[in-house]
């Protein structure tokens, strides 16, 4: 499979903070990569580098191009939603469609119109008159009508209510995604992308904490609900994380002997959220807000 994104030792420092401390990344065509990390982990910086919006050190190729020096060319095949609410507030829905149709050679107006027909968005409304969820729908309609090879979303559903969030990912998967496209999405809302992504990347403090496919995750990590009397024995097998839930002890193992673990209690694949908490705490760092 062709590599859509290839980064080696991607670094970026701002005045007195290290935003990216050398990240390696390989994304093949047809994958949906979820990038997850606490606020200030470097997610947005990494995406900005991929989109040619910010300079960086290290090697980076997106669709075979150098995003920083070949940005204009890259933007014909890459589309992104950098944030919720970046559509200008003064623009009318019809103007937004006209403009994108006028400047983007791969924009299919009929597709955008038919997507909008499924929403309550009026053609004559200005963005400032729409609810936050509707603005996200409009932006998604514009982006999905573009026949792009790579689609990048940075926190696309931040601040939206649960209905819009669900709808957003449903539309993305059902109406847009096919094996010829590649999607990279960052979010803090881990649960909502659990069933969407094919690949997972955790980053913290500008470093990769985990980078694996969902299939690999299933075979690599296992969570066991341990009976109290066997807790000590289970702990001897070196779980990477332990938590208590409803009076039961839940241990998380990495690359453990499944046969052996099954005797301690029910086992299952951990949720991304639990895995995230486990790996982040093991870094000896509290997930924290802060400067980038």
């Amino acid at each position, binding site marked *: 499979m062709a590599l859509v994104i290839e980064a080696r030792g991607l670094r970026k420092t701002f005045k007195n903070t290290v935003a990216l401390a050398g990240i390696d990344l390989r994304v093949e065509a047809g994958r949906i990569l979820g990038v997850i990390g606490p606020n200030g982990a470097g997610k947005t910086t990494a995406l900005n580098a991929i989109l040619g919006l910010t300079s960086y050190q290290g090697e980076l190729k997106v669709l075979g191009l150098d995003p920083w020096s070949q940005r204009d060319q890259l933007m014909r095949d890459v589309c992104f939603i950098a944030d919720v609410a970046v559509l*200008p507030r003064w623009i009318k829905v019809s103007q937004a469609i006209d403009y994108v149709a*006028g400047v983007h050679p791969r924009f299919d107006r009929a597709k955008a119109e038919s997507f909008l027909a499924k929403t309550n968005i009026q053609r004559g409304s200005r963005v400032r008159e729409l609810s936050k969820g509707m603005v996200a729908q409009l932006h998604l309609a514009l982006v999905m009508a573009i026949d792009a090879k790579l689609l990048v979303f940075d926190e696309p559903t931040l601040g939206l209510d649960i209905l819009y969030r669900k709808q957003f990912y449903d539309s993305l998967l059902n109406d847009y995604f096919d094996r010829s496209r590649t999607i990279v999405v960052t979010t803090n809302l881990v649960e909502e992308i659990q069933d969407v992504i094919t690949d997972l990347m955790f980053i913290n403090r500008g470093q990769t904490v985990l980078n694996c496919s969902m299939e690999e995750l299933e075979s690599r990590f296992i969570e066991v609900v341990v009976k109290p009397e066997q807790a000590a024995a289970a702990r001897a097998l070196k779980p990477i994380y332990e938590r208590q839930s409803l009076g039961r002890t839940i241990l998380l193992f990495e690359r453990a002997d499944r046969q052996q673990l099954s005797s301690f209690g029910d086992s299952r694949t951990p949720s991304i959220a639990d895995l995230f908490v486990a790996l982040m705490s093991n870094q000896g760092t509290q997930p924290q807000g802060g400067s980038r």
Partner: protein
Amino acid sequence: MSTQSNALSQSFGSNNMVPEISAPVHPLYWSIRRELWESRSVYLAPLGAAAVALFGFMISMTHFPARVHEILSLDPMKQQHAFAQPYEIATALIMGAAFIVSIFYSLDALYGERRDRSILFWKSLPVSDLTAVLSKVSVPLLILPFLAFAIVIVTTSIMLLMNAAALVGSSFTFAELWPRLALVQSGLGLLYHLVTVHILWYAPLYAWLFFISAWARRAPFLWAFLPPLVLAAFEKITFHTSYVSDLLIYRVSGGSDASMDGNDFAANPHAPMTPGAFLGEPGLWIGLLVAAALIAAAVRMRRYRDPV
């Protein structure tokens, strides 16, 4: 304008190879239209000024026949001035509105899109920073001057009709009024003044506003106007010289002085044009070079600075 690609539209979610949709695109044209969607004051302000002028002129027409006799008792030079004055004021009002809009538009052009973060949307589309900046620069340097000129012509024509209507039944005929207004000369003079002064001579001033608009993190208005004034005052106090203020004055009025003989356009719109002297003025060419450099810097900043 845009070509539909309905014929190429696909059913959703198909795994077939999607044919390359390649509709013809016109990034500069659509970027300029985009500017006019956003900044409606570009045409609303001069139109509003024209409406006010027309309204005032209409009221004045009710006692125009009486006023004609007063004017005709003046000496011929003053006659011409008295008849033409409302036209000159209307022109000045429209041009003044366009000029003020130009200044505020230019200062906001590259600053506003960063402030409201919409630059992240514009940058997600395949429109180069050069195209984006040039579309914005064309508003004060091409669109506004010629739009204002067209509005002046239309407004003047309507005033002329009102004048003619007010003279029906009067002993003073329209045929006698027309040569006293000298409207054709005024129109040509205005067009010449716009091209020489407002476009060519003021290009570096607008470019400076765009540069500040691209550079300033906040308060572009202050950054654009205060430093030159402070610098001039500092020079005067410290060295008792006035090179900076002379340069500023030259940049504001030098083009007008060079483009017409002895008098500036506002004082006498019928002064003889001196295009040769204007084109021979080194300040014109230096100014255009400075303008190009400032615009290039603005493009680079939009391209290479971290967004928002």
